[in-house]
């Protein structure tokens, strides 16, 4: 084939230009450490990298969310722990009150302390988190949850909602519990029924009871009435007689609708005892009831029995409240421990994403530098051969 002189130069120059551009590309790959720098370098990888980086960014956000939820749950746990301490003291005072050797001034001082404890508990329940939101007002987080109304009843102004925080692609955690779930909706009595003595009782009867067969229980408010010291009837809320008996011996069981109650002491004719279905009762009301019982004197035997009925009810309610708070706290603890686990696997995932990105986008340094060396050698060869060939001319010998 004929080669024209200008073509010889052109070919050599083209060869050098091509090698130079290859060297430049490899050099930029080596210096940046990235194989894919623009979408056109590898469109499929570019989109994959984009998705991975988004996943990483979302993952980082989940980390922030986990921290935020952890902080809030820790604050809640502290509040719950403080509440438990307060209830512990209330319980101690109730036990002390239950001992008969108390003077009226002792009772008065217990009542005063109970009042203070109740205020302390309200303060805990009205605590705010770091962002100034009330911890226990549900979703109405700028509404103070607990306040006393005109008739000195503690009322709840928050709602029953709770907030979820996203901690994974499809994973959410509740970052709090509403005041109604924590302090208000505590089942009364034993969870099935609650016992109380009639306020006008003149006898010394003290009632106790338990559930025998919950399947037979028909929720309603029942009244046990002694028509004489030994004859009794149990009526439901519509005054229908559910059960009745005569020749009652103190302490023996009265059984109806799957429950069993017994009255010790000597009930007088006309004395009544309530066996009401269990509803919910807030913790403040429970302490209020104890305070009220402390404030009223015990007086005669009938008064003592009345006090006993009241204190029995309060003690049972305190047990129920403490176990309720402990359940809430356990659930918070479980969520905190889950957050710890999720955070640790989140960090693993983040490292995993980084390594995937570098596997797809990153340059293989060993391969790239050996390629660079090869390309440099070939550029040199092109330059050297050009110089040699260009020198050859017939005219050198003419």
């Amino acid at each position, binding site marked *: *084939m*004929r*080669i*024209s*002189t*200008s*073509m010889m130069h052109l070919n050599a120059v*083209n060869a050098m230009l091509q090698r130079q551009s290859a060297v430049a590309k490899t050099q930029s790959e080596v210096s940046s450490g990235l194989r894919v720098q*623009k*979408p*056109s*370098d*590898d*469109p*499929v990888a*570019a*989109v994959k*990298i*984009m*998705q991975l*980086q*988004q996943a990483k*960014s*979302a993952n*980082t*956000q*989940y980390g*922030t*969310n986990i921290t*935020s939820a952890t902080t809030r749950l820790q604050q809640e746990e502290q509040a719950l722990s403080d509440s438990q301490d307060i209830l512990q003291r209330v319980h101690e005072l109730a036990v002390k009150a239950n001992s008969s050797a108390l003077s009226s001034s002792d009772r008065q001082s217990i009542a005063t302390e109970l009042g203070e404890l109740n205020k302390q508990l309200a303060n805990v329940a009205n605590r705010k988190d770091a*962002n*100034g*939101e*009330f911890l226990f*007002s*549900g*979703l*109405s*987080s*700028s*509404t103070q949850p607990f306040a006393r109304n005109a008739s000195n009843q503690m009322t709840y102004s928050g*709602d*029953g*909602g709770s*907030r*979820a*925080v*996203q901690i994974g692609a499809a994973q*959410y955690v509740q*970052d709090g519990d509403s005041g109604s779930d924590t302090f*208000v*909706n505590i089942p009364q009595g034993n969870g099935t029924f609650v016992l109380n003595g009639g306020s006008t009782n003149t006898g010394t009867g003290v009632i106790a009871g338990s559930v025998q067969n919950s399947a037979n229980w028909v*929720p309603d408010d029942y009244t046990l009435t002694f028509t004489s010291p030994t004859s009794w009837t149990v009526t439901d809320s519509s005054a229908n007689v559910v059960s009745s008996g005569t020749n009652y011996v103190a302490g023996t069981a009265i059984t109806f609708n799957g429950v069993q109650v017994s009255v010790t002491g000597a009930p007088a004719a006309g004395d009544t005892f309530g066996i009401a*279905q269990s*509803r*919910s009762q807030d913790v403040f009301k429970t302490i209020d009831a104890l305070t009220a019982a402390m404030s009223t004197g015990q007086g005669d035997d009938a008064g003592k029995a009345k006090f006993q009925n009241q204190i029995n009810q309060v003690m049972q309610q305190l047990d129920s409240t403490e176990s309720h708070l402990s359940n809430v706290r356990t659930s918070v603890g479980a969520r905190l421990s889950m957050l710890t686990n999720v955070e640790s696997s989140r960090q693993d995932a983040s490292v995993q994403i980084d390594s995937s990105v570098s596997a797809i986008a990153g340059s293989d340094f060993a391969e790239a530098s050996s390629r660079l060396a090869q390309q440099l050698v070939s550029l040199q060869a092109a330059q050297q051969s050009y110089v040699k060939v260009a020198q050859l*001319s*017939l*005219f050198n010998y*003419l």
Partner: protein
Amino acid sequence: MCSMLSTGVSGLMAFQQSLDTISHNISNASTPGYSRQTVNLSAAMPQFSGGGYIGSGVNATTVTRAYDDIVAGQVRSSSSAKSQWDAYSSMADQVNNLLGDSSTGLSSNLQSFFNAFQSVANSPASSSERQVLLSQAQTLTNQLKAYGARLTELDAQVNSQLNSEANAVSGLAQSIAQLNAQITAAAGRGGNPPNDMLDQRDKLIDDLSTHINVSTVKQDDGSVNVFVGSGQSLVIAGTAAKLTATTDPYDVTRTTLSLQTGNSSTTDITNALTGGGTVGGLLSVRSQVLDPARSALGQVAVTLTDLVNNQQNAGMDLRGAAGANMFSVGSVDVLNNRANSTNTSPTVTRSNVSALTGSNYLLTKTASGWTMQDAATGANVTLSGAGTVGSPFVAAGISIVVNGSEATGDRYLIKPTTAAVASMNVTLTDPSGVAAAAPIIAAASSTNTGNASITPGVVLNASNAQLRSTVTIQFLSPTTYTTDGGTTTNTYTAGQAIALNGWQVNITGTPATGDTFTVKDNSTGTGDNRNALLMANLLNKNYVSGGTKSVNDLVGTWVADIGVKSNQAQTSLSIQTSLYNDNIAAQQGVSGVNIDEEGANLLRYQQAYTAAAQVIAASNRIFDSLMQAVT
């Protein structure tokens, strides 16, 4: 002896001419477009004498150039393709570079924007988190607008390049026509080819082929006719047509190319010019990369806006009011054809964002009604409805209301998303306006004795007027309930959804007779983040293309599409470049000057010349010998 002298002289003259031509070749060894020339020598007619035919020397008949039409045609077509991909890939690269850095890319800003919703969800009452969200919204909007502006700028660049290409083509055509005329005149004299003029003209046609795809037909008189596009004549012998830059019938900002012969009217040949040269590259990069990129970017903006605004509307802001729109985008672009009989345009709105396709459409009034085609593919799109306000034409996510005064043949170009980005804005400026909360909340009554629980509720239809009215769900028995004291008794199935007034709740568990649940206005729910969580997950919500693609998918497709096209353009360019280099080598193999070859010829003719001179000297000595013998 007389003939010996004249034979010697003929040799001297012929070799002189050969040496002249060799010097010409050497001088033009580096001239672009030059074809090496050779002097064709032939023996002169012999003279008859008794002894037979005696030769009478040599004649230099013609000087010809080494030129191969087929090889030259190959060079032209490959240089045309090379310049096409050159123009295409340099423009596609600019778009590609725009998306280059993944850390500042669109996808990363989108993710940051939606992450900001998560931060709002963590503390909905915090105004600083809300402020961050609005700043992210602004950053995202700015970036979308910057991309849009850059693409518009590239489009304007294509327009101005097409203008200068048109001038270059017209200038070259003019020069080719002039050379054609000169060649025809020169060829008439003595029948010898005007080699250097031919070279010049062919070089001009080579140059022309880098601008535009050409085909040539050689005429007997030496001139060449040049055709462009699908056979439109640019140069006929000594007359050249003009390629002029005109404007698109729909869009005055868009440059098209038309051919004008003499003073006649112009003919738009834009669509025929996509086949090669810089012009072909510019036109195809405009229709294959820039237009789709702009409408796809618009689709991203429109879809994002629709999703976020709808979710905002379904939520409740910090003040307890229904969420207002967060973004606004430009409306549908409707362009009238210049030839339309009326100046009015149909009213086109995006009625269903999730059904938008990213394509542009051509709406035509025909004698039998209205038809619509995809502007890029020409495929028919079925229109439902009557085109009236009450029953608009609906297709591909847009609805069209025509005003009835249009004449048959009137055409409109509809660009559903292209203009969206340029006027995109963040309309929500007040951080409290972020609708993090849901407008309703459901709760169980605290006096309930059953163990049933209710979900907080979700909004199905934010525009229901009764959405935030209080509704009480009361259980008449563990299996039946009424809503809001109504007389209709509904059967309760645990876990089944209860929908009313635009919301939906689920009750699970076993309710007791008399238990009540209330769904009410959540106006105090400043700590609610239900709507913010829904917002945070919109990025990957399958929404468009029949619920199969998310905003994220749209962005991914957009980036991949541009990457693939840019990558293909680079590959095509490198293939065409090496093909072009091969063709040039072949062409140079035929026409190129080799200095060594010329050097050898120089020696050969120098020696021949010396020998011919010796013939004259010998002839002289023979004559002298004769004279001496006679005297």
